[in-house]
């Protein structure tokens, strides 16, 4: 537990990081630093996006797999790392 906290704190302390969300394989948030409604929204939408991206990568090459997804928008950047059971979502505002 402490390790988990420590890792999260390390990421959180980076400059510009707005939120961190841990989501399980079904898209249900496990841990978040954002308010509940936004978390749920992010979790649902990003889950679908990751599924789509992953299937795309695997369709092209079945031996390949998605490791990291970065969505850059005008206001911020959303970084997602998928895994077998979980994904980690980090939202950062790169330019201050």
């Amino acid at each position, binding site marked *: 537990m402490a390790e988990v906290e420590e890792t999260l704190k390390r990421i959180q302390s980076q400059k510009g990081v707005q939120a961190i969300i841990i989501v399980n394989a079904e898209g249900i948030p496990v841990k978040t630093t954002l308010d509940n409604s936004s978390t749920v929204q992010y979790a649902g939408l990003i889950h679908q996006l990751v599924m789509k991206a992953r299937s795309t990568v695997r369709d092209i090459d079945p031996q390949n797999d998605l490791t990291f997804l970065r969505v850059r928008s005008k206001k911020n950047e959303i970084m997602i790392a998928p895994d077998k059971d979980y994904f*980690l979502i980090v939202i950062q505002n790169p*330019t201050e």
Partner: protein
Amino acid sequence: SCPKQKQHPEQKRKNAPGPAFLSHLPVTGHPDYIFPLVLTSATQELFCCRADVDVTGDEPHKLLRKEDILRDMKNRAAVSDFSPLKQAVLDYPEEELLLVFDQDFTYGQSFYLVLTAGAKEDILRPPPGMEEEEEEGDELLEVQKTPEPKPWLSLGSEREIQEESVTDTRPRVYKVSRVRRQFGAPVCFWDHSAGAMRGSYVECPSYQDKSFSLWRMEKENSVQAIPNTKSSSSQTLWKYPRNMCTQYEPRELEDEEKERLLQSADLKNFLNSVSARFELAIQQNEIMDVFLDDWRALGDEENVLGGKVDTHLKEYQSFTHTHYSTNKTISCLSWHPTVNGVIAVAVTENLSFEERINNSTRLLLNPSLILFWSFSDPINPQLLLECPDDIFCFEFCPSNPNIIAGGCMNGQVALWDISAHVDRLQGARGGGAARTSNADDTRDIAPPTVRYCAVSGVESGHRAPITDIQWLPETFEVSRTGTPLENKTLISVQIVTCAPDCCVMFWDLRAPRTVVNALTDTKPKPEEKTVENPYGVPSTFKHLDLTWKPLFRVHTHTHFSHSHSPSPTPPDKSVTVGDRPEPPDYGQLHLPSAKHQRQTDDISTKFYVGTEDGEVVYTDWKLEKDNDSGQLFSPKPTHCFRVHDCLVNTVSRSPFYLDIILTVGGWNFAIWKEGVMTGPLVLSACSQKRCSAGAWSLTRPGVMYIGKEDGNLEVWDLLEKTHEPSQIQSVTTFPITCIKPWTVSLKQQLLAVSDHQGTLHILQVPWMLRHPAANELSVSRYFEKEVEHLVYFEKRTEMREREKKQVEAEEQRRRMVRSSFSWWASLLDNICPKNICAGRN
């Protein structure tokens, strides 16, 4: 009328034989070619056809010549017996007409005229062998009117009828009978098998008849192809109610579940493996923004086209009128708040006081005007407002741009209502193309003149020219004692004016409430007399005309020259444009009693006023009550700064920062921050020429325009340099009297500059000066820095004072020590030898 029935066949025969064709006589009596007529004895003599003399029953025929008849008709016209026959006679082909003497009155008259030649022939020479028929015809002639029933003449129709009718061909064979009592009785039917009883039915099986087995060997057939269309429909049954939509909650894990997961080793491993990627990515972002287009970002700073950076204010248009504005100066100008492209200027005489007195008669004849210019017509003003006297300042009402309030030179406040002419103003600005057709007409027509519709009472107004006038914003209003109150009607109804008679007055547009108070109100209310309206002035402010008194006044000892509007509304009371109600009937509004209105505590009642002597005064307008006498008096000004050397001509708030104020006067200008009472934040260096006008830029917080006495317009940019203007441009050769910027659209910003000689110049602000640079926020930082600077300065002065005191004290002490030492030295000199003193020294 039935003719007489004569039954004398002999006589019949003696008579002229009737014509054969008389058997089909119509009931009326005479065929068309016979015209029975009456001939008078005169006519008879004329034509020699006297009854029973010339013409008799034996010889009834007489031939008359057509010409004779015509002559007779001509001679005797209507009286002639032949007059009804005129046309028939004219049409008659032959020379002679037959006149027949009708002894028996067969046709109803004693004579008849035969109108056709054929008939004449027949009558004169009847065809032979017609005796019998004649007789029959005679008889028929006798009984023509009453036909008798004749026997039926069958023509074979009864056979047809017989064939069609239905009759029994044979006697009826079958008779079915029943016992009487069974009639109407209920009958019971039962099934009966047909095959059970033979003979109960007759069968007609089908068989193949050879006579009909013909095969058609050749057959003509045609085929048409059509698209196969089929229409069908079906209806489903709605068996049971079903949800159309569901509302769901997002799935969430229970807290214990979450805890468990967080504790799991699985998650730990995941995070450990994944966090490295994140850190890399995040740091990458921090190091450099890979998506930033440097080239584009660079371009935003300067002119996008890359050409020469243009900071010059271009002349867009200039307005002047030969008649209305020559030899006059423009004292004030204002853009119309809603109609685009319309600007109003107040034109005043350019004379000193003595000259005014000398020329007073001429001045009375030429009334002072406010001109409305529109961009579509640079030669003629669109509208003229007539003023009671020269106007030094005027403003449009912020909630109703049809109301204009102006302050006159004699201390009166005038009100105009231009609602009737708004269409003209609005049409003028856009209809340049449409008006070319009748351009000549419109040039000749003088612009309409609107007289002021209300003016304040001369005694109750100011005693000096009103130098500034402002409308209070529509979110609050002021009571009689100066306390700000909530404005329920959300329209601006109050005006503030100031004048060099040391007064700031608050005026209200609404009719004063007649306060019935037994103690104070001794004289009866004067009855309203109907006021004539000789000038056709709109009666919006009739209730105020000539009786308008200020709500209350603020007295100070200084002479005011300019003031600005009180602090603007706090943010929670902002009014959106859509909520603005219709301009009300001002006559119906009444001053509400102060009890009913809520006090608004968050409006500051302090304001800045500039004076004639160059002072800037910060004071409160709320009247205070003197505890001793119970009278209301205005408080003393809290702060008074003397920074300008001459009359302060502009006091204006920055449109970006609510507490930054610009004052212009004399040879310099100053920027103040409300709340900082130690001095101005920025005080410009004294320039060579006097500054005569100033304005903030509407889009750039650090830019202001200062107008000079020599007609130059200086652009000061606080971020660039503060010791001199960043740009100087010569606009005109006369002193500039007023500057007002206006944003037309995102791409265009105009600056209106008026000069002392009556010309209004409109300049276009270049992109550099209107486009806010990326670091405009630093303007606020600049001001904060200046405040700190002032604070530091103050502290430094204190410190210096202290230091000075210290140094003085030190000096004092040293002097004391030295003096005491010299005393000792002199004493010792007397006692001791010199060498000791030398050693001591």
